[in-house]
């Protein structure tokens, strides 16, 4: 018994050593980013102490004002909130209809959305850019928002439809008998019940929009409309790289998404697991 216990302890020691090494590799780059954002241009090159001798905060002020990160940050917020709101409304309406309501062509339309999810379309940004410039939607916030709504639409509809399919319809039937309209049932019965699935959709699409780069690059060339990912590139390209300020900008870009992730990580895990089952 004792021998068995010792072997187990030994094994656990190695497993933890392995897991902790990977943990360190995940966290150290982020720690280093924050640490370097608190240094000056001269100390950053020579001081290698884990906690630097002198800590300064002004890089964040410089990044926010002179580096335009304040504007970029605000833009990222606007895009993320409007796209996610749009996706939630549009995809839940569609998913509800696909799951509960009857109309001709339903199956064909639904399979279109599924096919879009299955077929990778790399380089679709070329015709998309051409179309947007024809429509005069380049450098236009609404244009970018609509593009991004489309990016998240198929997966959200599929996830929500699967959820609605499994949901018992008793409450909706009761609401219908009470004279509730279809739209009222969607808004007051189906949506509140679908909250777990909506949480997954909100977190996924938030990550996606906040981190999006290529369409933002092609469609938004006006600094006042750029989101953070594009702003980072502009900042790095324009100056002789001011590393402490760049690190402050990176921290400003990464921090909100990490906080949201830590707050909602349960939903992410759940979404991924169900995604694996769906796929």
């Amino acid at each position, binding site marked *: 018994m004792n021998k068995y216990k010792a072997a187990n302890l030994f094994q656990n020691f190695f497993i933890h050593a392995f897991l902790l090494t*990977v943990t360190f590799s995940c966290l150290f780059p982020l720690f280093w980013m924050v640490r370097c954002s608190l240094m000056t241009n001269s100390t950053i*090159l020579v001081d290698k102490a884990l906690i630097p001798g002198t800590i300064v905060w002004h890089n964040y002020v410089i990044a926010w004002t002179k580096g335009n990160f304040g504007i970029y940050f605000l833009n990222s917020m606007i895009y993320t909130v409007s796209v996610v709101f749009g996706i939630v409304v549009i995809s839940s309406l569609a998913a509800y209809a696909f799951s509960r309501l009857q109309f001709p062509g339903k199956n064909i339309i639904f399979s279109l959305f599924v096919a879009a999810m299955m077929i990778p379309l*790399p380089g679709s940004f070329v015709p998309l850019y051409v179309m947007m410039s024809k429509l005069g939607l380049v450098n236009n916030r609404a244009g970018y928002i609509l593009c991004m709504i*489309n990016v998240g639409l198929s997966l959200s509809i599929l996830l929500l439809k699967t959820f609605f399919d499994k949901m018992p319809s008793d409450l909706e039937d009761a609401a219908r008998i009470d004279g509730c309209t279809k739209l009222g049932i969607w808004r007051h019965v189906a949506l509140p019940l679908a909250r777990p699935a909506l949480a997954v959709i909100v977190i996924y699409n938030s990550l996606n929009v906040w981190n999006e780069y290529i369409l933002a690059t092609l469609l938004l060339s006006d600094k006042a409309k750029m989101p953070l990912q594009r702003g980072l590139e502009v900042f790095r390209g324009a100056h002789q790289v001011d590393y402490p300020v760049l690190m402050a900008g990176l921290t400003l870009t990464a921090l909100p*998404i990490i906080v949201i992730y830590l707050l909602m*990580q349960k939903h992410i895990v759940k979404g991924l*697991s169900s995604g*694996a089952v769906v*796929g």
Partner: protein
Amino acid sequence: MSTVIKNKSSVFEIKGNFENFLFVLPALVIFSFFYIYPFFELINLSLREWNGVDPFRPLVWFRNFQDLAYDEVWWKSIWHAGYITLIALTFQNVLAFALALACDREIRMKRFYRVVFFIPPVLSEMVVGYIWNWILDPNMQNGQYVGVVNYFLVKMGLLNLVHNWLSDPNTVLTTIAVIHSWKGFGWGFIMLLAGLQTIDKQLYEAAKVDGAGSWSTFVNVTIPMMMPVILVVVILTILGSMQAFVLIISLVSQGLAGYTEVPVTQILTSMNGNKQFGYACAQAVVFGLILVVSSFALKKFSDRMKQA
């Protein structure tokens, strides 16, 4: 009398159907504009020669594809992406599987590990690229390295490992692939862990009773049970790694021409740099076909495996 009622009900039905259809209309409109139309426009443009401004877009049929067949840089870029994908499939997925197996046991801090391993995947490729570019900085100041990786390698006496990771043609692609794996292994980890947790524990008990060792249990129980999840992870890894490019742009920016091109950066160059929109679309079509065919082939292969 009865016909009147019938007509009335069908009128109601049509009205109801139309009302129901309105629910999917917003999604359908956006989808048609931003997915279906670009899909056909992509194919249409791939058969034309166009500089992006000229109102006239002459039809050249398959000439773009012919040119593409002899475009060495293009095929090299496919090879680069393939190399990154190969490392992601082996290194990244084996790591993810090993971590998932470790976290599937009764072990302390399980939840902590699970939370940490998914932090790199939530970061943007831009952020990851810039952080690692800085960590791997090859410059020296006052006789010591600026980049923290080379600095610690010197401190630990591993002088022969000190390296200009991102500017040496021999190491740049592998370095990119490893950082790509660093960013991506959390996805596989979470999915594989979820898969492992659905395996009925009684199967392990039964294997134990039959006298199977831990290795033979792994090969004969865990792997077959995990096949569907592994397949999903493999396909997602291929699709994600083949199309990775923001990480590369942010890691090496313009540097190292000839060693870091991947298909998507080539499409971007054809479009924005050379103003050959038709050619860019031909590249996109060929690349899309490669992706579709390889994921379908994998699916077929695994179906065959299942039957055998």
